[in-house]
């Protein structure tokens, strides 16, 4: 499936920023991704949409299985 160039660029930047954050292990504070506040799923309203870049997610909040393997198949 073809993705827009702006979205691909945003992903590239997002990965780069996150990689840099991981490498330097700098302390992070939660960053307001959606200025208007996310709804419960974190999805933005139509007005807020548009690929945001350069804002790291909170690494400490990523589940352990993403770093240590996945338990779900039962053999992880």
């Amino acid at each position, binding site marked *: 499936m073809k*993705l827009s160039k702006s979205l691909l660029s945003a992903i590239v930047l997002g990965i780069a920023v996150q990689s840099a954050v991981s490498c330097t292990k700098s302390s992070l504070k939660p960053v307001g991704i959606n200025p208007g506040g996310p709804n419960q799923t974190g999805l933005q309203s139509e007005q807020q949409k548009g690929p945001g870049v350069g804002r790291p997610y909170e690494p400490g909040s990523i589940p352990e299985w993403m770093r240590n*393997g996945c338990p*779900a198949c039962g053999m992880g």
Partner: protein
Amino acid sequence: MPRILPAVACNLDTNILASCLPLLEESRVEAIEWSFDALFHVKQVPDWFLELLAAFSKEGRLIGHGVFFSLFSGKWLPEQETWLQQLQHTTAAFRFDHVTEHFGFMTGRDFHHGAPLNIPYTPSTLSIGQDRLRRIQAACCCPVGLENLAFSYCLDEVRQHGEFLDALLEPVNGFIILDLHNLFCQLHNFDIAFDELIALYPLERVREIHVSGGSWEDSYIMPGRKIRRDTHDDAVPPEVFRLLEIVIGRCPNLKYVVMEQLGNGLETEDSRTIFYRDFLRLEAIVNKSNPGRVSDPVDISFLPPLADIAHPPIEDETLYQQQLELSAILETAGSYGEARQRLDRSTLAHSAWRIESWEPYMLETAISIARKWAAVAH
């Protein structure tokens, strides 16, 4: 027959995303599978990841893969109620083409922070599983499916798994994710022939196939015995691609072939290159099977029937206590011998769990899995 879409399991993980990026840039990824419940407790999700999900969702090419529901917990738990509410919120934001979960019950202090293990195949567990699937379907309002489990304690369980899945899914018109690496684990761990094993699965129910890698682990109690584990942290073995070539034409309702690998196996450039090549190989097999299949047909397979949910949720207190007992033994026994002794004295002895027929090396593996995830959770 629907056209088959080559897809990747794509989650909010830098290594996975960096590995998927070249494939996304070349427009090779036709769909993505997202483990939505991994982000239920994440406070801030970056816009660009949400936009990625939204782009696939808009085209009807986003599929959801839950991890933490614990389908067969004997007791209905508050965490399950919360999980369903969060799924409902998520599906209000993203349209899933289907939603899936895993087979088994999770070990761990609250059944949501461990590893899923097999359950006895009884009328009681069948009722619980059917009840939970109805609730998932009512929450997500789309087709629902279950993945075949990699772990079994004995060959009898392996032989019964396909039939039990079929019975579980029948009331919700559900489908199977056929994880070929999970089958590969069972072929090796139980020395069963592929033709014999695949004949035991209702392949008309397969809507999705998983292709992934894993690892080998030595058994200490049976020196020389190697256990294949579905750790998702390595390249796809050639044998799994061969299984895909054999099976793909035998699944008339297949729509997605998903490559799954976790970020911990994608940290180096070499591993990302292999990931890319593996996807190309997957894509080539899919493309070879697609002639004669229809692009974007009106997909009426696996549409949910009218909701029919029993209130209150079906529970089995005895099963629940046995699950707690088993989890505690697996997580705390100091050795295989101690685990065996404690099991023999437990309420699981001479019951539907049939612990007397469990293969020692698989009990040893269960201990290893439960301990690993107990350590991660704590």
